[in-house]
């Protein structure tokens, strides 16, 4: 288990970052990371070779997807109006903080599958091939989702209004 500690421990901050960006709630995200680490400890004997990072992100991502499904099954929207309880950009200067908050709000409006690809590739520095492995999708699908994610986020940033019917509801109906 010593080799596991050495290889996995440095990756925990990145796992937290990915989970938080995906589910946008600190407590839920940390619960997912904790589940992920417990599962990784149990399955460490199954880990053979390749990128430890991709292996861990795959475990985490699958847990997050299960979580999304459970929330969906309960008939509730994943809250996006979480600005008050979010802790994004705590360490950043105030003006940056607003800017960061803004881009993260816009990121949250992307479909989950596009958000996942963009985060893994652009923030977590996974190779396209590793992202495909984590998400269990073909490489071509990674590329098309990445492209759509970037286009869509850019439209959000530039304030382009989308065609009606293509709008993802931003907030849950109270």
């Amino acid at each position: 288990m010593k080799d596991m500690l050495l290889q996995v421990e440095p990756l925990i901050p990145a796992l937290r970052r990915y989970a938080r960006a995906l589910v946008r709630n600190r407590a839920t995200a940390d619960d997912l990371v904790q589940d992920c680490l417990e599962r990784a400890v149990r399955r460490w004997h199954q880990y053979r070779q390749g990128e430890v990072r991709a292996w861990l992100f795959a475990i985490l991502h699958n847990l997050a997807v299960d979580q999304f499904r459970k929330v969906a099954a309960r008939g509730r929207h994943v809250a996006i109006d979480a600005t008050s309880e979010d802790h994004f950009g705590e360490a950043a200067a105030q003006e940056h903080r607003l800017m960061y908050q803004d881009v993260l709000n816009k990121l949250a409006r992307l479909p989950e599958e596009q958000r996942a690809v963009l985060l893994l590739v652009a923030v977590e520095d996974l190779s396209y091939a590793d992202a495909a492995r984590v998400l269990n999708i073909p490489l071509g699908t990674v590329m098309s989702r990445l492209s759509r994610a970037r286009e869509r986020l850019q439209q959000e940033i530039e304030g382009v209004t989308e065609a009606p019917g293509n709008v993802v509801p931003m907030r849950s109906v109270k």
Partner: protein
Amino acid sequence: MNHPPIMEDDLHGYVDGALEPERRAEVATYLDDHPDVAKRIGAFAAQRELLRAALAPIADEPLPPELNLSRIIEQRTRRPSVARWAMAAMLLLSIGGLGGWAMRGALEASPGGLVALAQEATASYNVYAPDHVRPVEVRASDSAQLVQWVSDRLHRPVKVPDLAASGYRLMGGRVVATQHGPAAMFMYDDDHGSRLVVLTRSMSSADQNAPMTRQSRGDVGGFAWADDGVGYSLVGRVAPESLRPIANEVRKQARAI
């Protein structure tokens, strides 16, 4: 020019720094010639930087104790013995009226890793002691090599107990697999061909130190104990009480290392 045309994937590869230097240069040239595309790609690169900067502080936050990996690993390896203690506690509660005797019984029945250690020693005994061809991997005549081998595998200096004063000669030993890592097994016999096994390995966090207790399983039995994270078990197919002085001797020698 025989360069492949620049595709959408190349543009993303450019943004993500995923291109070979040569291809990267080709994309850069292409972007110089296509300002509209360059503007779009520039925006994607800016997006990327913005996202990274916005999310970076999360990775700098101190980890909450629930995400302490050492702790998770420790809990994972300790869980079975925790369950045993919980069972012992329930037993105590259900027969609380018996007081001290119940407590004594429950504690003796749940010495954590010692039970497992004695079972491992018994298993090794059952497999290797009846073996007339190759009961040990390294014979006593090569005991220096044996000591070197088991010390390497157990990551600590291991001394072979000398039981000559009790009438048992060292036959040799080997490294054996247990669920708790490698263990060193030493085998002894006496003039009547009766064999004993001493098994030693590192203990998991639960039983770093444990007093010598009698352990038996079927007609093979003996004693087990742990000192400073190292567990020992002595087993044989003889009356347990006749093994106690030998176990004491093994412990005395081990403590003298």
